[in-house]
């Protein structure tokens, strides 16, 4: 298996489609080109699938907060989820501005195709696993949202930097919890096991390196970078953090499903 696709195809650069139309960006309520509407809605829905469910169903909050081994950990997770619920509401509101009304029924019954990791997230009840999840997936959120901080859909650009900053806090909390689990509770072996489960799923969440759609996001000025470029930058940052704790990051292609 090989990985390719860091550079966009010839003639595609950030916002190239917008330049051709002589448009700088769009606001809520603007008449959007059909492809643009489809792409920006997809971006919002991916994030809404992850976090807007929290606005309707609090079971995940309860499971994760009670997983903390002490009152300090529960207090921190409650503050953490206050931010996640705010993100969920923000994404719900932006989806509504694009004409998509998300309801509790949608999250309960819709048969949308979800990535494997989305379903696993709801089942995490082990504190060390949760620390790995926050260390890995919330850091992915930092990369994804920073990359959209000058998104051509202005309502999305406005929230992306704030969300990215919150995710910096979330991944730092995950890492601090992970460090404590390893250094104070002897959980290194368990952490390595959870790492081998979540590392490939997190790398997959960046998307396929050969995706044609990724370059349409770039051309419309929605995202700056392709999937593979972001994934490689992420790995360069996360691996030294993991090795400092005595963990061994899996091979780049280990157990990957979306190359």
């Amino acid at each position: 298996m090989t990985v390719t696709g860091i550079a966009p195809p010839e003639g595609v650069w950030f916002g190239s489609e917008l330049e051709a139309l002589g448009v700088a960006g769009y606001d809520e309520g603007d008449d959007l080109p059909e492809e643009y509407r489809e792409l920006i809605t997809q971006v919002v829905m991916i994030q809404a699938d992850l976090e807007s469910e929290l606005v309707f169903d609090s079971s995940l909050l309860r499971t994760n907060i009670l997983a903390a081994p002490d009152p300090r950990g529960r207090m921190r997770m409650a503050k953490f989820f206050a931010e996640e619920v705010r993100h969920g509401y923000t994404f719900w509101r932006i989806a509504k501005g694009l004409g998509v009304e998300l309801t509790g029924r949608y999250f309960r019954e819709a048969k949308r195709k979800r990535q494997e990791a989305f379903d696993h997230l709801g089942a995490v009840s082990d504190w060390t696993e949760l620390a790995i999840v926050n260390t890995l997936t919330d850091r992915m959120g930092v990369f994804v949202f920073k990359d959209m901080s000058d998104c051509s859909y202005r309502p999305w650009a406005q929230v992306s930097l704030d969300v990215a900053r919150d995710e910096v806090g979330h991944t730092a909390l995950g890492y601090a919890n992970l460090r404590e689990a390893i250094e104070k509770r002897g959980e290194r072996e368990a952490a390595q096991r959870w790492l081998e489960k979540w590392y490939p799923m997190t790398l997959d969440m960046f998307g396929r390196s050969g995706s044609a759609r990724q370059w349409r996001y770039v051309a419309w000025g929605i995202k700056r970078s392709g999937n593979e470029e972001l994934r490689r930058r992420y790995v360069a940052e996360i691996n030294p953090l993991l090795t400092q704790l005595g963990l061994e990051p899996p091979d780049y292609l280990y157990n990957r499903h979306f190359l």
Partner: protein
Amino acid sequence: MTTTTINWGDLEGLVDALRAAHPRVDPRALDDAELGVLVEGLEGFSASGPAAGPGDYEALRAMWHWGA
């Protein structure tokens, strides 16, 4: 003045000093190098032993932001 040696394995004293010296700073907005500058600039603290790694700054960022 008493000098406290920075212990990267036990960050609570360091975080208390950083919060007192920089009450308006959001540590989530700082990269590791910027955090390092604030640590080096603290009065009454001195570094010794191994240099801090990226994980030490990450743990410091967490403790500063989320509270003890």
